[in-house]
């Protein structure tokens, strides 16, 4: 499954149950060009286990500000809508796998 585009309209609904990993990104951000494809890979590898989503901070500035995102890419891991961990800056695929492993053996 491809990563889901999240908006302020559906964010809470999509993220409120289970595990979700959300990539805050923007078109103009160089490192986001590296994280984007990796997030898509993770989305297909974790289908059914973790909802992998993307938030375009230009289109959804209120979501970025609500979660205190001031640097992108930032990837936040949520369980039942509550933040459990975050990775600021592009970390490579291994970095995101480490984030998942650090919080829960996913």
């Amino acid at each position, binding site marked *: 499954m491809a990563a889901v585009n999240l908006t302020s309209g559906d964010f809470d609904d999509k993220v409120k149950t289970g595990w979700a990993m959300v990539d805050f990104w923007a078109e*103009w951000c*160089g*490192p986001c060009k*590296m994280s984007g494809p990796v997030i898509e890979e993770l989305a297909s590898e974790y289908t059914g286990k973790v909802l992998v989503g993307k938030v375009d901070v230009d289109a959804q500035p209120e979501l*970025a500000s609500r979660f*205190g*995102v001031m*640097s992108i890419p930032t990837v936040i891991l949520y369980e039942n809508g509550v933040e459990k961990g975050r990775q600021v800056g592009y970390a490579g*695929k291994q970095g995101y796998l480490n984030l998942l492993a650090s919080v829960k053996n996913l």
Partner: protein
Amino acid sequence: METIYDVIIVGSGPAGLTAGLYTSRANLKTLCVAGEKWGGQLMLTTLVENYPGFSEGIQGPDLMASMRKQAEKFGVEVVEKDASEVDFTKRPFEVSTGSFNTSPHLGRSIIIATGAEFNWLNLPNEQRLIGRGVSSCATCDAAFFRGKKVVVVGGGDAAMEEALVLSRHATEIVIVHRRDKFRASKIMQDRVMADPKIRVIWNVEVKDVLGADKVEGVVLSDGQTLVTDGLFVAIGHSPATKIFAGKVSLGTRGYAQREGDKYWTMSNVPGVFVSGDVHDYTYRQAVTAAGYGCEAALDAERWLEEQKS
């Protein structure tokens, strides 16, 4: 039978990818251990105006994607893994990527092109506030500082670019520099000095950054506290040679040394070549790195040829 590459390139900035372009076009079987964060320092830039051939400039990440595509077109295999360990005492040479259940990659020759890593200030509260106002990448984060005040630390071209990028969004930019003049190129200095939003505090260092959940201020070495929403650090780079310590000879600042006689780009270990910012303290440009990558590739090609006879 395990693959033995003619050339293993460690690194994927302009030096590494140019080296790969040359070795693969010379029909040498080439592996590029690109790193999890491939593409090098240009991945964190915006418009590159001084890479020849692009009269209107080119976006740094686009330039690197294009270099990678060009190298791959001629057969370079790219793995997006970090090299974790090297063994240059064996032939073929070994480069490990630290993945579980995988044996090291084997190469008849090596080109070290790992470039340089970003330096932080190492302030007490710096790491804690990264992503919460502390940043190393204005091109990534400037838009979050619309209508806010920011501090930039540094005096080179990178610091000038950070300040200029921030000036499009922030209301006030203060460059804090520990010397009484900038090391940056004249054209970048002129742009900074002409920008009414940017002011400079000379001869002062940043001692700490303040704030609980986000940056609220910075403490300076002259005792004053500046109220600010962001701290952008651009104080230069150090060579990424940690995994090569004790494997090839490193200079005083940790830069890999070119010690070849017949082959100028060769390190003290025959068959191990060095290119780009990992050895270059002086020039540090994308175009010089690409040039060094080409030199190392040509040397590796000739050296490999010589080994056969």
